[in-house]
């Protein structure tokens, strides 16, 4: 293998005194002093969270306020550290979304176990669970950090829906086409 011998020039007298280098460094630091700070004053200022960031997993509702999760438990099944625990429940027959049939009675995500992998979001057939932009969690006890259903909905809020799957299903049913 060909080797290349680097030529090392001896230092000139000016370089040996360090002084030109020190002055050069001081020039750089002086210039830096007049630049605006690059830091964020964190709790007051928050960073912009980029699209596709995987923050805390949350449950969302559709724009009509319907809870989207149908407690199929796929996310519970896929979750690598088993952070999710779902107790399925039925939807009241009187409710106008009775045709969805199921909704979670209890839904908890243990934020201390979650590894923010996003599998639950990926696997969910109802687009009901999303990892959004919340990145800082704190609590005084372990129990507090097992987020319950209402907390998850509170954090998730409402996201736009492209399909309105269940509304269309009902329309089709009413139009006499139950297998839509």
């Amino acid at each position, binding site marked *: 293998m060909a080797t290349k011998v680097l030529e090392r020039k001896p230092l000139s007298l000016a370089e040996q005194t360090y002084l030109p280098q020190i002055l050069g460094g001081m020039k*750089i630091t002086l210039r830096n002093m007049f630049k605006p*700070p690059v830091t964020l004053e964190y709790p007051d200022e928050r960073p912009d969270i980029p699209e596709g960031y995987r923050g805390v997993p949350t449950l969302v509702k559709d724009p009509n306020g319907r809870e989207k999760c149908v407690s199929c438990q796929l996310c519970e099944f896929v979750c690598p550290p088993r952070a999710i625990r779902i107790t399925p429940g039925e939807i009241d027959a009187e409710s106008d979304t009775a045709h969805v049939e199921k909704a979670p009675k209890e839904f908890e995500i243990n934020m201390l176990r979650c590894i923010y992998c996003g599998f639950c979001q990926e696997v969910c057939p109802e687009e009901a669970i999303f990892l959004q932009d919340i990145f800082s969690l704190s609590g005084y006890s372990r129990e507090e950090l097992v987020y319950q259903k209402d907390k998850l909905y509170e954090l998730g809020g409402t996201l736009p829906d492209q399909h309105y799957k269940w509304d269309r299903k009902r329309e089709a049913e009413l139009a006499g086409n139950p297998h839509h």
Partner: protein
Amino acid sequence: MEWNELLLIVFKALLVLSVVMSLAAYAVLAERKVAAWVQGRVGPNRTQIPLLGGIPIIGTFLTRLGVFQPAADGLKFLFKEEPTPGHVNKFYYLLAPMIAFIPAMTTMTVLPFGQYVNEAGEVQPLVLANLDIGILFILAVSSLGVYGIVLGGWASNSKFPFLGGIRASAQMISYELSLGLSLLPVFLWFGGSLNLFNIVQGQTDLLFGFLPQWTILFQPLSALIFLVALFAETNRLPFDMPESETDLVAGYNTEYGAFKFGLYFVGEYTHIIIGSGVFVALFLGGWNLPWVTLPAGLFGTVLSVLIFVIKMLALVFVFMWVRWTLPRFRYDQVMTLGWRWLLPLAVANLVFYAIIIAVIEQF
């Protein structure tokens, strides 16, 4: 001595003391701010005094500037628990911070910081004690400060402070020599006077009618050697061997906390301020401005003090600026620089100027 004369002296001393102390406190703040600015951060910007900080625009501005921070720091040093580790030598452990603090404070007595014209029309220095051997006094007393560091390192009875103390003493010995030698040409230049006031007055005139007669213009090498040695004497980066927090935890003050640490801290900054003052007096013309004659009367006095303080603070800023620019030297590099470069250079400088001055005096 009359009673009121004595009272006046005490009053003057207290005044100077409190000014220097608050300068030291604000030097700490300035250090933190400069560090932050150099590193693209904001620095201390939260501390608020309830009423003052509440004033709409000014209050917020001052808070952002961190003006109230030194008060908070000082209170913290005062009220923190003061643990004394069980393995230390109590007597020397307690003595050391005082020994570090007192010399730093004592040197300010002979530093002239302004001038006034007395009834007889003579220009007199504003100084606590106008000693004829002023600069010798400063050199002698300020080098006592290292005993505080050595003693602190030794009395702490633990490894890192011990190493810090040893380094401090080695460094101090190495650079003290160059420091003294670099000053000799200055004294020769001003006709052998060791009085700081005479040296400052010697820098009043213009040479050939336009060149300010500041020592730094005539003896740049002396100034450089003195400045480098001053950095080493005050343990500032790039010479902060005794502390070097990356390899010695915190060096000599590792085992110190609360108020005792505060004493070391304030002592260090006082040392820097007084050192800058000495440099200004010796090399930067003291309270003289080139091409400007100070008016007589109270206004001239105030102006002279202001000029001196501004020059001094500018130099303190340079100390900080250098600190946040340069990395620390290695221990052997410090020794090489001190013994193999600065010392021969200082001797050569002395011989050179001795010959020059002798030649000038011949004609």
